[in-house]
């Protein structure tokens, strides 16, 4: 059954069209912050809201790419990718908290407000180093990556596959959510981190910061897309697809399935962590709600809607579902969950190859 989903690259003409569309879309995105600088009364003016929300969607699209890499190509349906995303966000959030310095409500020189409030005397050891930006970025990849390494090693080694892996990863993000809700974890409890002031010397609530973060996200997106393309086109990528379609057979052929899966899972987690790291400064808050299993599964549905097994499809899904969400939650908030639920049902039943499947020929 899943063999029919092995969407090979669409045929010649489709591929070129796809590429052109992609380039056009990226150029269009890149234009947004420029148009934002136009005077208000200009017909082409783009509001701050559009820029910031698009910036957010770009990080979502990176998350979708990460999920697609693991699910679409290696058949690892993780329902805990939101956890990697949130961990990356927390890493950069810690850096942002450190940068607030004495400007907090309590005015403590080193401790963030919530720590003063909770009666901490000094910074916990695991906060050390987060005042350096490169370290925070490194941790935004290293923490999700190591978590994925441990979980993946345990899971793949004992050949936990399919829905079992999904349930385990879901439990993982659920456990993390519960843990982060605790005040004595040292991560701000259920309020999380907010009230950020600046990043790399630039105040966060200015339009220049917005466009800088926007371009950073776009660069991350292109970088991630490039990396994923390389991985999936390589021999390694072929083996991954083979593992997805017939794991035992690949194992019998002498490939080390565990290591292949582990590699792609860790890579995917690191990409998700970076996406989270760019997401947090743009939305200005990170709290344990980001770990909720619902978030992870919502991200999975972006990929499903766009078309799993196609990197461009993942991007398409992330943008279209989030656009629909933004539109519906303003027009008819009560209907959004119906629409999202309906998407889950409709896509799995009628669009197994996602939106992208509509544009490319079905494989034989």
């Amino acid at each position, binding site marked *: 059954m899943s063999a029919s989903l092995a969407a090979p690259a669409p045929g010649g003409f489709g591929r070129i069209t796809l590429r052109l569309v992609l380039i056009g879309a990226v150029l269009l995105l890149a234009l947004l912050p420029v148009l934002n600088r136009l005077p208000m009364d200009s017909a082409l003016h783009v509001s701050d809201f559009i820029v910031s929300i698009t910036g957010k969607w770009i990080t979502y699209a990176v998350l979708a790419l990460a999920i697609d890499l693991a699910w679409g190509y290696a058949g690892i349906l993780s329902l805990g990718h939101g956890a990697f995303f949130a961990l990356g966000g927390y890493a950069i959030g810690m850096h942002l908290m450190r940068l607030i310095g004495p400007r907090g409500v309590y005015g403590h020189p080193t401790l963030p407000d919530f720590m003063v409030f909770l009666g901490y005397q000094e910074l916990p050891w695991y906060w050390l180093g987060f005042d350096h930006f490169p370290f925070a970025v490194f941790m935004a990849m290293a923490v999700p990556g190591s978590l994925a390494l441990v979980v993946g090693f345990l899971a793949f*080694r*004992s050949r936990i596959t*399919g*829905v079992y892996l*999904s349930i385990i990863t879901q439990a993982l993000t*659920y456990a993390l959510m519960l843990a982060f809700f605790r005040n004595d974890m040292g991560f701000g409890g259920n309020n999380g981190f907010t009230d950020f002031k600046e990043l790399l010397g630039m105040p966060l609530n200015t339009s220049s910061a917005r466009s800088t973060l926007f371009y950073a996200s776009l660069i991350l997106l292109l970088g991630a897309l490039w990396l994923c393309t390389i991985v999936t086109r390589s021999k390694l990528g072929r083996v991954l697809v083979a593992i997805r379609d017939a794991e035992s057979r690949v194992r019998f052929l002498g490939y080390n399935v565990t290591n292949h899966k582990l590699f792609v899972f860790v890579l995917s987690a690191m990409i998700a962590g970076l996406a989270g790291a760019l997401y947090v400064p743009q939305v200005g808050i990170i709290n344990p709600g980001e770990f909720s299993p619902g978030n992870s599964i919502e991200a999975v549905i972006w990929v499903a809607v766009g078309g799993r097994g196609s990197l461009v499809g993942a991007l398409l899904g992330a943008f279209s579902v989030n656009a629909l969400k933004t539109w519906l939650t303003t027009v008819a908030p009560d209907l959004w969950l119906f629409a999202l639920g309906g998407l*889950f*049902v409709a896509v799995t*039943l009628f669009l197994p190859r996602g939106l992208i499947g509509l544009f490319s020929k079905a494989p034989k």
Partner: protein
Amino acid sequence: MKRSLLGFLLVLLLALPASAQDHLATALTGLGDGFGQTAEAVERLGALGDPRAIPLLRALQDGTLRRTPAGTVLLPDDTDAMTGAKADAAGAEGVRINNRVRQVLRGALGRLQLVSPDAVERLAAAEAVFRTPGLENVPLLQAALARETVPRIRAQLELALAASQLRADDPAGKRDAIARLGTAATTEARALLIEARIVNPELATAINVSIAAIEQRLQLRRIAETLFQGLSLGSVLLLAALGLAVTFGVMGVINMAHGEFVMLGAYATFMVQELCRGIPWLAPWALPLAVPAAFLLTAAAGALLERGLIRHLYGRPLETLLMTFGVGMILQQAVRLAFGAQNREVISPAWMQGTLLLPGGIAVTQNRLWIIVFGIAVLLVVVAAIRFTRFGLEMRAVVQNRRIAATMGIRTGRVDAMTFAFGSGLAGLAGVALSQIDNVSPNLGTGYIIDSFMVVVFGGVGSLAGTLVGALTLGVVNKMLEPYAGAVLAKVFVLVAIMLFIQRRPRGLFALKGRAAES
């Protein structure tokens, strides 16, 4: 030993009606002759420990006690306070009291309540005496103890007696009291002993032995109570996971909307309760009625889901997972719009409320006890349905070999639908149980779904025994960790432990072997 013998003799004396009557008559002399004499009579009555004195003293307190010129004391209903017979009320006058008499009255009544026919009153009196220990209580308590039969009140009386004896000068009595307190298992007894240790350093060794005994009992009780809470949580998990064991374990269909079916069951309970509210004779039966109602509602929803959607996705478990998650979202939102996002209140029937005190002082809440019973009952029904019914036979046949089953004339599609409906109905039953202990709200199910899946994965997919053991283990382990780690961390530990556990046994505790194991 000697003391209890004395108590026994005292009872024998009290039990003889004739002599008791004499006692009462003697005690009564002087009542109403003047405030001083009245107070003395009240004092005597209080020390007598005769229940018949209670209505008399009450009437005196209310100012409704009268006395005939002949000296007969009359209760408000014109009966002789001594014999209980109707008496001639002609010329009777009220017995007047002043503040001094009132004060004495209160003390006497308090002590007399120890022998009151009302058990609640006796318990309250025993507790009151325990709080105000004194040497003068000893004979009274011994008398009361001798005739007391309710274990709980006996325990309280023993405690009060020991507390009073500890005040005595008699070292033998003290030792006796210390030993007796050592057999109790309450924090009050321990506090009493610790207090006594300061006053009586010469008895420290005996007291320490008793304290150690108490602490051991308290520890045992804590363990028993934790065990009960764990079993209670385990039975909740069992109820929630049984349905999954059928849909996921037997059919291999992963139903993420299972939690929402549980929620639907809870709302069905709520609706049945609202329907029954108008009919007074039906209202107490709302909960038993909700059981079939919730089962049928969720079973119908399950059948609909299976025939309408899941059927098309057989063999694609990941897609099924996503699709049913979407269905769950829709159900949740629909219920939220229909009933509102706030919690709905489901009232427990009277026979499920309150706390049961088991021997050894283990406190057990009734509704949790009933849920354990309910969980076991549902498990037995499921086992019986799968083992002994035609439906169960067909279900097992289809699971084992679909094509051969079809050749044998089994309508496999119908069996699929019924199996799924059965599993969903079980979720509804879990909802009925959860409505008793949790808030009935649209996201009721989300809190249980992950735990339930953990139970099924831990216990071994497709094994009911595994589900039972898994649910109880998880429940007990969770509750055992809670005092040390807090509820949240306990949950996290359990999740991590399960992940490590399936390293050793990837297919759970009770793994299926042979062909069926290959998915």
